[in-house]
């Protein structure tokens, strides 16, 4: 093969597919990037759980394919001057030329590279990249890191009742992000959180479309120059609707930013490892945020609009802060039932997101 391509274009493609290349593999070929010159230049990284294929515009002089060790290929291209790069293969070797520089490095046989399988389209959902990106951002933090319950290490993607939701929960909190979707197939898949965080990095913040295709035990994300194939997690995701209370005793409306800052300050003295909670005391149109730990204590007042009864409740401040950080709105609704029941964070209007956080029970 022989292809000529702009350095930055090639580097962008390498960085993208590298996310799916194994750092350490039993077979050397799995540590490689697959490179194919067809109509365009295609790069592929695949670690079976996740496969990424990327196309880049290039001047194709001769068609063909090869596999190159990913780390070295990336480092070489990164350090080349910002100019046209020529990639040419001969006798199993790859010649990389750029201005006055020539590299001649060993390649691997493209025939034996395990490309992500071709797939049938079972069900398809289409939405804008920017929207999908925000939805992942709003849920990813609540994915469980505990491999004991595999299903919880993923994000549920579900289309239902004219909308699409992403749901993640780790046992102590839950994040739900929703959007309206006019016409789409019914889909319900659980995608590994680790893959979702890579996908998040590839998505751009635009109106450009992403097609989500479910196929067997895989799900593919198709964008203009890039196709990502991820394994799904088998098993039944929790019936998360059941965890959400249907009515509340205490509902307060408050400024998100003010609440977040106040929690950050309160958690300064309650060191994380001893698990000292931050306490919220809703009384009338005031919420007192206070914390007591070995080092000392803190206390501050936030003005709220209280639409229910008074309440005292404790939380791991990190769980609240994580949720508040991903909310775009200025004002939010915070609802409770009891000292041991969950708190719910909602938008003041609509159902675009829902965060459920379990409190810390404070022994009387």
């Amino acid at each position, binding site marked *: 093969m022989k292809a000529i391509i702009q350095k930055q274009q090639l580097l962008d493609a390498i960085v993208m597919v590298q996310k799916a290349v194994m750092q350490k593999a039993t077979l050397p070929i799995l540590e490689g990037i697959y490179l194919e010159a067809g109509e365009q230049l295609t790069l592929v990284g695949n670690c079976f759980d996740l496969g990424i294929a990327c196309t880049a515009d290039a001047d194709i002089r001769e068609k063909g394919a090869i596999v190159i060790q990913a780390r070295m290929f990336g480092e070489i291209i990164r350090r080349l001057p910002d100019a046209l790069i020529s990639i040419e293969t001969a006798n199993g070797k790859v010649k990389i030329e750029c201005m006055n520089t020539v590299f001649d490095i060993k390649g691997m046989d493209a025939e034996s590279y395990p490309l992500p399988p071709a797939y049938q389209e079972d069900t398809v959902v289409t939405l804008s990249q920017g929207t999908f990106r925000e939805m992942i951002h709003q849920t990813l933090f609540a994915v469980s890191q*505990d491999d*004991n319950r595999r299903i919880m290490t993923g994000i549920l993607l579900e289309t239902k009742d004219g909308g699409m939701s992403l749901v993640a*929960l780790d*046992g*102590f*909190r*839950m994040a739900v992000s929703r959007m309206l979707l006019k016409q789409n197939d019914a889909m319900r898949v659980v995608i590994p959180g680790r893959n979702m965080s890579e996908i998040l990095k590839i998505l751009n913040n635009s109106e450009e479309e992403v097609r989500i295709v479910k196929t067997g035990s895989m799900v593919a994300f198709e964008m203009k120059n890039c196709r990502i194939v991820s394994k799904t997690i088998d098993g039944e995701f*929790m019936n998360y609707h059941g*965890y959400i209370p249907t009515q509340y005793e205490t509902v307060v409306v408050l400024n998100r930013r003010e609440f977040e800052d106040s929690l950050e300050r309160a958690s300064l003295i309650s060191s994380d490892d*001893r*698990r*000292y*909670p931050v306490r919220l005391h809703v009384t009338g149109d005031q919420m007192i945020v206070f914390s007591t730990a070995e080092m000392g204590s803190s206390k501050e007042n936030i003005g709220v609009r209280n639409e229910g009864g008074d309440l005292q409740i*404790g939380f*791991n401040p990190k769980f609240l802060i994580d949720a508040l950080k991903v909310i775009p709105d200025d004002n939010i609704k915070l609802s409770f039932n009891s000292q*041991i029941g*969950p708190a719910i964070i909602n938008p003041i209007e609509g159902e675009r997101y829902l965060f*459920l956080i*379990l*409190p*810390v*029970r*404070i*022994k009387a």
Partner: protein
Amino acid sequence: MVRERTVFHVDVNSAYLSWEAVWRLQHGSTLDLRTIPSVVGGDAESRHGIVLTKSIPAKKFGIQTGEVLWQARQKCPNLVVVPPNYSLYMMCHQALLDLLHDFSPNVQVFSIDEAFIEYTGSESVQGDAVAAAYRLKDRIRNELGFTVNVGVGPNKLLAKMAGEFSKPDKVHTCWPEEIASKMWPLPVGELFGVGRATTPKLQRLNIMTIGDLANAPDEMLARHLKSYGALLKASAQGQEFSDVGPDFRPPMKGIGNSSTIPFDCDTLQEAKLVLLSLTEMVCMRLRQTGLCARLVSVSIRNSSMNGRGHQHRMDAATDNTFRIYETACRLFGEMWQGPSEKIRNFGVRVSDLSLADFMQMSILQPYDERKKRLDDTLDRIRFRYGTQSVQRAAFLASGIAPVMGGVPEENFPVMSNIV
């Protein structure tokens, strides 16, 4: 003479046995267990109980701590074996501590039957250290009924060494000028920090006594023992600088309880009862210390002495007996090969501890206030009237004790880092 620093080490002589003997005398027994060959050890009926403490007459028969009971009985056929009594020990431990605080505000619990006292500065109030040590020893004997050894030295290490010189009911000193005469002639294995693994290593280097170690070339020690060599040599020379803290027990990592049962267990029903019985004690101790655990481990050993263990991290930390018991049963189910495998030893352990004052609620493991109240009520009844005062119906006619397990060694890890 007022020294720069003075530390006491107080060690109860044959603690468990003395405490049991005192308790029996106070409750009308005419026989003092301390005057006859006797031991505290597992269940007298069971096959594999071990000697936890021995009386001084029992020691004369060559009975050793840690020895299995039948072996001890072979050495001394008339041996009296009494079962351990955890709550009694806790009571005696507390009484001892209260008394020690009369001598200095600075008392460090070292184990259930050992403590350090920082006497430095107390001379102006309590007078000469050695005289005070005698007063302390005598007060414990007269007021509490058991005897202690008091070691007096310029630091914790030498105080502890002094406490070991000869027993029972003695006060010894080990001042810097006495190290060569009192400590150096002792076998090197007697030095704090030299255990079963290090003793043979040192003996191979022809280091037989503590004195040999104190005078051994640095380079040789470094070659064979790395940096630990220098530390041991400093110990042998009586150097040690740690403070007597109010409580320097390292934070507890876990609570465990295991038992060799007096029969081969080959039914699931029996195995579950044993697990429940062990879990009861684990959880009582967990709640008593105000902690919750998230990780449950179960270990078993079968009749061919093969052992193995499984563990599980629960969705949320808990101190609930039933929850931990359920998890233990599941772990046992994973490991057990079925009735063909006869189990002799069971162990239940919880770790990954957090404070029960602040319990993170979980979506997947709902909090059950009624179970909590049941646990608390049972604890209160058992604390007041003894562990056997109330039992689960499942244990009726089962031949299995409803609460198994003894002394909470892990509450008092003996190897706190004094050097």
